[in-house]
C-alpha cells in the first residue's frame, strides 16, 4: 500500500511558487527523505500534507485519506515533529504527552501505558516530571518525537529532526528514528538539509530545489548516477597527461581543470596503483598528487542543481529577503 500519494501539488506565497507542481509516492514502512536547502519548499510540503496549509493546486492522499476532504482522518493517521519546538514549556514532559493523548482521544489505560512506552523509547523516563523549560534542546526534540508517536500514527513526519543539535545528540536521534521505524513499523517522512542524515536514514530520497523535485531515487542509485568514484590527479603537464589517461580502458569519464585531471571509475582505491605503473618519464609528465573521492549526496546535489547545497542556501536566503522586503513595502 502507498502511505502517501502526492499529485501536482503547488503552493504560492505572494506570487512566488514555494512548492511547484510536485508529485511523489511514499511506500508503507519506508523512511522517505526530502533533501534540499532551506527555503526549497520542504516545510511547506509537510504543512500541506499535515493539513496545516491548503495547497493552491493539486491533491494528495495520506494513508488513503484526501488531505482536503478528510482532514480529521488524515490528522488521526499522522504524527508530526515540527522544525521549531511546539511544546508547552510550563508543563512537564509527561503532562505534554498526556495533553496530546487526550486530544487524540486515548483512554486512561492506553494513555498511561503509551506514555511509559514512548518515554522509554527516547530514554526520557527519568525526566518525565521535569518542566519542559528545564530540558535541553536535544531532550526537547526527543520529547517531541515521543509525542509524535503517542497515538500510534501510521505516518510520522519529521521536519528537520536534528536541526541545531550537536553531533552526538544527532546520532542518538538517528538511532531512535531507525528503532521506531523497525519496532513500530511507522512510515517516516523526514526533511533535512544534512546530506549525511538523508544518506544514513532514508531508503529513498527526493532532492528538492526551488520548489521542484529534481531527482528521486535510493541513495545508492543517486550516487551511481555520477559514475562511481572520482580520482583526481595533479600533474606537471596536463596537456601531455590528458591523452594518456583518456586511453585507459577503465576510465569512464575524464575532466580537467586547473592542472588537475578527474577520472570517473569504479573502485578507485584499486586503480591508484595502476596509475603509478604508467611510464611517466617517457611520456613527459609527472604525477604530483592523487586524491580519491567517493561520491556523496553533496555531489549528486551539485550535479542536478549546478550548485552545492550551501551555495544554494545563500541564494535562497537572498531571494527570501527580497520577497520579505517586497511584502513589507506593500
Amino acid at each position, binding site marked *: 500500500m502507498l502511505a502517501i500519494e502526492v499529485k501536482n501539488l503547488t503552493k504560492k506565497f505572494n506570487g512566488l511558487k514555494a512548492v511547484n507542481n510536485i508529485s511523489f509516492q511514499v511506500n508503507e514502512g519506508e523512511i522517505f527523505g526530502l533533501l534540499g536547502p532551506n527555503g526549497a519548499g520542504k516545510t511547506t510540503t509537510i504543512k500541506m500534507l*499535515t*493539513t*496545516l*496549509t*491548503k495547497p493552491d493546486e493539486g491533491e494528495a492522499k495520506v494513508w488513503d485519506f484526501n488531505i482536503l476532504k478528510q*482532514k*480529521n*482522518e488524515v*490528522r*488521526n493517521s*499522522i504524527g*508530526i515533529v*515540527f522544525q*521549531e*519546538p*511546539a*511544546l*508547552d*514549556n*510550563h*508543563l512537564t514532559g509527561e*503532562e505534554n504527552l*498526556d*495533553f*496530546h493523548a*487526550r*486530544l*487524540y*482521544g486515548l483512554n486512561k489505560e492506553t494513555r498511561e501505558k503509551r506514555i511509559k512506552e514512548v518515554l522509554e523509547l527516547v530514554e526520557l523516563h527519568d525526566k518525565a516530571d521535569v518542566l519542559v523549560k528545564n530540558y535541553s534542546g536535544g531532550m526537547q526534540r526527543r520529547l517531541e518525537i515521543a*509525542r509524535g508517536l503517542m497515538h500510534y500514527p501510521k505516518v510520522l513526519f519529521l521536519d528537520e529532526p536534528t536541526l541545531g543539535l550537536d553531533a552526538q545528540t544527532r546520532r542518538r536521534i538517528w538511532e531512535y528514528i531507525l528503532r521506531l521505524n523497525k519496532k513500530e513499523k511507522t512510515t517516516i517522512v523526514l526533511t533535512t538539509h544534512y546530506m549525511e542524515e538523508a544518506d544514513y536514514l532514508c531508503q529513498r530520497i527526493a532532492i528538492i530545489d526551488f520548489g521542484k523535485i529534481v531527482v528521486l531515487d535510493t541513495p545508492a542509485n543517486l550516487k551511481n548516477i555520477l559514475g562511481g568514484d572520482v580520482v583526481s590527479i595533479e600533474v606537471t603537464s596536463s596537456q601531455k597527461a590528458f591523452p594518456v589517461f583518456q586511453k585507459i580502458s577503465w576510465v569512464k569519464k575524464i575532466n580537467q581543470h586547473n592542472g588537475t585531471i578527474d577520472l570517473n571509475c569504479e573502485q578507485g582505491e584499486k586503480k591508484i596503483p595502476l596509475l603509478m605503473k604508467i611510464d611517466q618519464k617517457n611520456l613527459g609528465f609527472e604525477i604530483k598528487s592523487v586524491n580519491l573521492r567517493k561520491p556523496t549526496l553533496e555531489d549528486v546535489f551539485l550535479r542536478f542543481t549546478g550548485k552545492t547545497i550551501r551555495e544554494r542556501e545563500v541564494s535562497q536566503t537572498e531571494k527570501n529577503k527580497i520577497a520579505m522586503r517586497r511584502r513589507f513595502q506593500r
Partner: protein
Amino acid sequence: MKANNLQVIYVMWLREMKRFLRAKSRIIGSLAMPFFFLLAMGMGFNSGFNLPGVPQGTNYLDFLVPGIIGMTMLFSSMFAGLSVLWDKEFGFLKEIMVAPVSRLVIVLGRIAGGLTTALIQGILIFIISLFLGFKVVNLFGIILALLFMALIGVGFIGFGVAVASKMEDTQGFSLIMQFIVFPTFLLSGAFFPVTNFPSWMRPLAYLDPLTYGVDGLRASLIGFSQFSPILDLSLLLIFSLVMVILGSWFFSKTEV
C-alpha cells in the same frame, strides 16, 4: 466522538489551570491594578461626595466596586483570549491545530479555561472589596453577579480569540490593549454613570458591551442600575454568543 470532545475541553481547561497556578506573578500582577483603583479612588472619594446621576447617599466605593469587578473580568478575559497569540509565538498552536478535533471544541476549551481564571480573579477582587468596606445587598445578588461576570468573560474571551487569530505575532498586543481594551473599560461607566458623558460620547458608551456588564453587576450587587437588568442580561447574552461564533470562525481560518 461526543465523549472525546468533552475530554478535549477538559484537557484544554486543565492546561490553563496548571499554567495559571504555576504563574504566581501573573495572578498578583493581574490583581494589582484593580486593587489600586479600589484603594485610591474608592477611598479617595469619601462618602460625603455625591455623584450626579447616582441616588443620594450612595457610597462611592459601593458604586465603584461593580465597575472594578467588570474591569477585572474584561482584562483577564481579553488576556485569556489573546493567549492564542503566545501559543502561536511559541509554536504550541501547531500541536493543537494538527489534532483531529473540531476548531469549535478547541475554542470552547479555551473559553472554559480562560473563564475559570478570569472568574477566580474577579471573585478575589470582590472579596478584597468586602474588606475595604463594600456592602452587598443579598445572596441572590451575588449569584446574579456571577452570571454577569461569566457572560462578560465568555464574550471577551471569544473576542480575544477572534482578534488573536487575525494577528501574526505578539507585536500588536499592546496596540490592542491601548486602543480596544482601555477605551472599552473607560466608556463602560465603571467610574461614573454613562449619563454623565457628553451627549456625543454617550452613543459610544451604549455600543460598549461592558457598559451593560457593569450596569448588570451594579443592579445585582448594590441594587442600582440605569437600564433594566433584563436588558443588560439579554444584550450580554447576544454579545457573548456572537463572540463565541466569531472567535471559532476566525480561529478555524488560522494557518500556522
